[in-house]
């Protein structure tokens, strides 16, 4: 083909696609009320334009078809016999399908995206941009975001250091006051200089934070605009789905009525394209497995046409696609049997209907005896689930026997940036995407204890019933939370997934922050519960939990608790008590490397509380602490018969004779000067633990 006609063809195909889409939308409009034929006038006009255009580029097949359809429209418009409308509609759709097939076949070559200006300044104000270029821009913007986050992490660390510096300088200043007056004044003036430096640094920090915050606003807007360029209306996918619905129904001799209840809103084009195969699969399943044959339907006194309904809508931060049918519903008995055969559950497992239905997402799961070309190959549903999860979304099922089934897919709106709520469980921080959290409530400890004592705990809030579980127990860390004397309430996170309402109990909340979720890699592909990981301001890695999968699979697996075979000896627990967060963090990291379990406390009072519940094997105590210093803690411990034998290592700056004497009196096993040497401390710990094991 001559280059000129090639580009002409491309231009025509753009127009043809638009016309085909418009015709499809208008056809749907007509479908909603077959008697009202206004849309047909518009359709006829579009067909006429299409005919003209296709003749210009010598596409005779297409132009002939357009002509035939135009004539058909005229016939329909004239015919007043309402009984024929349904047949006309079917016939028209067949022609329309063929038209779409031809246009699709002609479209080859790199896809071109249009950037459309919103709010229609002028419909011709469009630009063609290569899709891969837009993709690259988006990637760059995300990278920029990550770099800004990194920068702000460093700034936060910088600030933490400055704060500590101020703390130490003040403490130094205090000590200076105790020295006799004729001390060297140069020291005092140097301390003053230090303090001024700190003030300067603090001011710098404030400035930097301000600049970062400004940059963040610009960055967010850039991202939003870039995301906008990739948005297309949900309704774009409808013609295709309708086309498939008709095809499949014809092949299987099922009579269906495909309707779109709602199609407002837009979605990222990339996301929608990736979802198309999954939606197609759900549609095929609905027609094949869901809708019964006409004979069966009439026996059940159901309407002749099986109803398949699709809804697209936005809910908060998520784009939702719901597909429902009024067919037979999932065959829960067959699913249960299959799960049993595959060894996924035990014989007498008690599972809710929701849990049973989720087995269809297991690979290789198909309860159909005959695997036909359409579905039943058992490969589809697990891939749909994987794809949806891959985008950070989830899919839920509602099914009622002989009433029908509804699948709801929820996808996060923006693909990478999200806000996560940080929660603490057993001294570890985990992240949960805020977009999934319905609400956070504080519940008092007494009520929590009562609820947890029941066999199947529930939490009731605003007329809704939530399954209550402790996060520590789901993660296999600890059955119930530790209730510290002082705390009166504990936080509970509420989640409303369409088919399951969950209340998640955690130890404490740790704020929230913008996170970039990174994937954990192939080793985690099989784990549903962790939706990735992110980095905190201090560089720590925090796992992001996929609460939906965790709660659902957790429920599934609660029966299959085979005891864990451990090759190792039980891990010794060390408690590190120090008022400096730096010291606590560094010591904890260092000890964890050597496979010790570490718990921390920031002062004497907290230490004593935690000792009661946690019963550590060894204590590392700082001496100077607010509220209760190291000696007080040691004294209390030695007085309690249960803890009198715990090995205590005291680590401190001042190791004067008076302190040593007191330490000996309190039977403190070891007294080390800060800063300690790692190998030395390790040796001491090992020796003390060995010695204690013997006693």
């Amino acid at each position: 083909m001559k280059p000129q006609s090639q580009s002409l063809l491309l231009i025509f195909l753009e127009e043809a696609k638009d016309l085909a889409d418009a015709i499809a939308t208008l056809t749907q409009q007509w479908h909603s009320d077959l008697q009202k034929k206004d849309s047909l006038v518009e359709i006829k006009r579009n067909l006429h334009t299409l005919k003209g255009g296709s003749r210009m580029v010598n596409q005779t097949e297409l132009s002939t078809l357009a002509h035939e359809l135009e004539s058909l429209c005229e016939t329909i418009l004239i015919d007043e016999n309402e009984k024929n409308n349904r047949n006309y509609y079917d016939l028209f759709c067949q022609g329309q399908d063929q038209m779409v097939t031809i246009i699709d076949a002609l479209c080859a070559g790199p896809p071109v995206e249009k950037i459309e200006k919103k709010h229609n300044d002028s419909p011709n104000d469009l630009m063609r941009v290569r899709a891969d270029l837009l993709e690259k821009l988006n990637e760059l913007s995300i990278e920029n975001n990550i770099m800004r986050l990194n920068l702000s992490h460093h700034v936060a660390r910088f600030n933490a250091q400055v704060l500590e510096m101020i703390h130490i300088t003040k403490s130094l200043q205090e000590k200076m006051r105790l020295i006799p007056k004729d001390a060297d004044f140069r020291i005092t003036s140097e301390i003053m200089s230090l303090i001024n430096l700190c003030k300067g640094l603090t001011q710098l920090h404030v400035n930097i934070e301000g600049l970062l915050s400004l940059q963040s606003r610009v960055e967010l807007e850039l991202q939003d605009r870039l995301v906008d360029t990739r948005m297309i209306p949900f309704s774009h996918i409808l013609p295709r789905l309708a086309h498939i619905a008709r095809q499949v129904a014809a092949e299987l001799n099922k009579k269906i009525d495909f309707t779109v209840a709602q199609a407002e809103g837009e979605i990222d084009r990339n996301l929608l394209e990736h979802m198309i195969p999954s939606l197609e699969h759900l549609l095929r399943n609905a027609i094949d497995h869901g809708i019964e044959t006409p004979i069966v339907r009439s026996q059940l006194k159901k309407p002749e046409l099986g109803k398949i309904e699709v809804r697209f809508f936005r809910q908060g931060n998520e784009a939702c696609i719901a597909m429902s049918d009024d067919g037979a519903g999932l065959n829960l008995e067959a699913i249960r049997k299959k799960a049993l055969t595959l060894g996924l559950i035990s014989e007498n497992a008690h599972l809710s209907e929701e849990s049973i239905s989720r087995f269809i997402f297991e690979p290789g799961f198909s309860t159909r005896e005959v695997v036909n070309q359409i579905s039943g190959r058992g490969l589809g549903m697990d891939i749909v689930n994987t794809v949806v999860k891959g985008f950070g979304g989830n899919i839920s099922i509602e099914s009622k026997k002989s009433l029908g089934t509804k699948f709801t897919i929820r996808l996060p709106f923006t693909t990478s940036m999200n806000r996560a709520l940080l929660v603490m469980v057993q001294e570890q921080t985990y992240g949960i995407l805020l977009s999934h959290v319905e609400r956070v409530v504080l519940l008092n400890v007494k009520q929590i204890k009562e609820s947890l004592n029941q066999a199947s705990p529930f939490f009731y809030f605003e007329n809704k019933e939530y399954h209550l579980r402790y996060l520590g127990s789901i993660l296999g860390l600890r059955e119930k939370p530790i209730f510290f004397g002082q705390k009166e309430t504990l936080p509970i996170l509420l989640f409303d997934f369409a088919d399951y309402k969950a209340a998640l109990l955690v130890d404490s909340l740790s704020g929230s922050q913008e996170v970039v979720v990174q994937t954990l890699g192939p080793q985690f592909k099989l784990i549903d519960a962790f939706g990735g990981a992110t980095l905190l301001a201090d560089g720590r890695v925090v796992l992001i939990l996929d609460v939906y999968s965790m709660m659902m699979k957790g429920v599934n697996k609660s029966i299959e608790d085979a005891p864990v075979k451990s090759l190792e000896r039980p891990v010794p627990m060390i408690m590190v008590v120090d008022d400096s967060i730096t010291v606590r963090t560094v010591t904890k990291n260092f000890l964890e490397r050597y496979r010790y379990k570490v718990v921390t406390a920031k002062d004497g009072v907290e230490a004593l509380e935690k000792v009661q519940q946690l019963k550590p094997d060894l204590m590392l105590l700082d001496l100077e602490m607010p509220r209760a210093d190291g000696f007080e803690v040691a004294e209390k411990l030695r007085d309690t018969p249960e803890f009198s034998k715990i090995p205590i290592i005291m680590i401190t700056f001042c190791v004067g004779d008076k302190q040593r004497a007191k330490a000996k009196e309190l039977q403190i096993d070891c007294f080390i000067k800060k800063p300690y040497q790692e190998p030395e401390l390790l040796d001491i710990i090992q020796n003390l633990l060995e010695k204690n094991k013997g006693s």
Partner: protein
Amino acid sequence: MNAFETLLDLEKNCKAHAVNLPRQIISERNGFGISFKASGFHFVCAMDQVSEVLKWPSFTELPSSRSWFRGAANLRGRLLPISDLQGFVSGIPHQAGMNSRVLVIPFKSYLYGFAVEQVLGIEHFFKDEKKSATEIPDIGAYLPYAKEAFEHAEQPWILFDFEAVFANPNFYHVLSSRMELGH
């Protein structure tokens, strides 16, 4: 003599008294790699398999993971999962010591960290030092990962094949059986 002739003379003298380089036994080199220790054995792995060697970073543990999976660390903004090489291969966990290091191995656009007892340096091997891996006493669990073996400097050395680790499906089951939340 002028200055130039003096220099020429000097050069002649030097060359006359120079000691020749000893004749090298040019045995064919078999290659070289990064050497490390694990389970008491000496290993070497190809240079291009390792992208860097780290001192133990701080890492976050994964709840209910198998004992050989230590956790995830932050490597300049990227996630690095850290596995205990000895623990994974032999089932006996490695007690971290002062010399422990983490080898960073890139594979198919992801990074993997492997903790080892000690990293020794770079070692060169000669073709005539090659021997069969099965000859190494007590090689046991490491045999499937031993690409080649050498006898060098009076020590048996094993050429460790990380690809064999990545090909082992067990490497991708990091949760303990009780908590296999996906499968």
